[in-house]
């Protein structure tokens, strides 16, 4: 039952050498850009840029392949759901209807719908590579320092850092407790009736919650003893100063954001229309 997670591996590449703060800003602006634009040209360019970045970063396929399959599966489901619920969404957005073929009832396949769903797909393909890259190339212990650097209060940055530190511990606790419960005959699968199943789940959750509350007491007592929260700011062991490459990366992302917005909104619509209006 060992679950795979995306984890950071130390490698030598220009992407790994960038400071965490820059990567965080880059990823945030990149996501915002990809969220706003529905312009196919802009999305395609960003997608290609993402692939090039992946190549440069030298991350290994097997480090993220399992997530990729999962994402592709969910994306397929999502595409099907979009079509089932709204087969004419594309026609509504682009204002024309070029039917390719008809299936049954209100379900027909129009080029507008295909184009619209292609754009949704492309939107994910622009965000996902950057998200993966950010997770695979950023040292978790540098991440808290980065959050603080971009203006998040250091208390919240520290909370994030605690969360990342304790995920493996809590995963181990959870598995130990649920195996112990299963060994005692507590069943949480479909074989048990619903009422009993819920009661059994709480038999696993309660010890997990109580150990977690205990952990909160211990950790906060330790932090209190070290006068956490006394100062108004805090320094970080893992914080690094910005280098030339960092400023270059910032310039690139600002240029991408500006370029994409210009391309997207210069004709007054969020969508790029390839269909001719017949009015």
């Amino acid at each position, binding site marked *: 039952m060992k679950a795979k997670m995306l984890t950071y591996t130390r490698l030598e590449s220009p992407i790994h050498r960038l400071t965490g703060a820059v990567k965080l800003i880059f990823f945030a602006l990149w996501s915002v850009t990809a969220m706003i634009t529905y312009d196919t040209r802009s999305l395609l360019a960003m997608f290609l840029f993402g692939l090039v970045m992946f190549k440069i970063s030298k991350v290994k396929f097997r480090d993220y392949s399992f997530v990729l399959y999962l*994402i592709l599966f969910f994306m397929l489901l999502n595409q099907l759901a979009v079509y089932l619920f709204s087969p004419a969404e594309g026609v509504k957005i682009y204002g024309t209807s070029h039917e390719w073929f008809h299936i049954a009832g209100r379900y027909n396949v129009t080029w507008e719908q295909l184009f619209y769903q292609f754009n949704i797909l492309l939107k994910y393909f622009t965000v996902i590579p950057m998200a993966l890259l950010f997770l695979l190339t950023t040292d978790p212990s540098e991440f808290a320092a980065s959050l603080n650097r971009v203006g998040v209060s250091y208390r919240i940055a*520290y909370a994030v850092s605690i969360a990342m530190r304790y995920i493996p511990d*809590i*995963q181990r606790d959870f598995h130990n407790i649920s195996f112990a419960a299963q060994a005692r005959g507590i069943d949480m699968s479909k074989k048990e009736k*619903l009422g009993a199943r819920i009661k059994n789940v709480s038999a696993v959750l309660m010890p997990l919650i109580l150990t977690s509350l205990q952990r909160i007491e211990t950790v*906060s007592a330790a932090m209190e003893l070290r006068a956490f929260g006394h100062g108004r700011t805090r320094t970080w062991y893992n914080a690094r100063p910005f280098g030339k490459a960092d400023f270059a990366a910032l310039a690139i992302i600002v240029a991408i954001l500006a370029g994409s917005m210009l391309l997207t909104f210069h004709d007054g619509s969020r969508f790029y229309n390839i269909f001719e209006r017949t009015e």
Partner: protein
Amino acid sequence: MRKGLSIITVVAIGIGAALFVILGRFGSIPSGLPDTNIETTYAVLSLFSVLYGPIAGLLIGLIGHTLKDAIFYGSPWFSWVIASGVVGLVVGFAARSIRIHDGEFGAKQIVRFNLIQILANAVAWFVIAPVLDILIYAEPSDKVFTQGLVAGASNIVTVAVLGTLLLLAYAKTRTKQGSLTKEA
């Protein structure tokens, strides 16, 4: 007056978010209905919100859901991340009127907790999540409202049953105020 979050809140947010991540990934159990799971993580989020208040609830939802999506699915789905934060925030407001630390969780508190959690889940899943899905991802409205309806309804039931059970069990571990009696 101290500025910012207290130490215990900072740690509770951290550990709570880690719990949210693990239970969000491994803690969903089949409900028997197709495609609907009992997401135990929302029961635990509600418990933590009642224990540590609205700000902690909000941040546990936001941080926990972002990390869960990022670590296991590769990219955060922000509309639902925000909805999780809202659940934690609204349920956290119940903390003021329920003194769970003193072991008080009787019929009156159970009703109050459930009214607030129903409100929280309804706002988050019936309104916020679908509206943000439309605004951010331009998805068809029928689809996102149906998804929100299913998720919201199942979360309301989960928190009503499991959340209440957990709070009852927690209250039992605390010593009630004024519970000492003089021996005759």
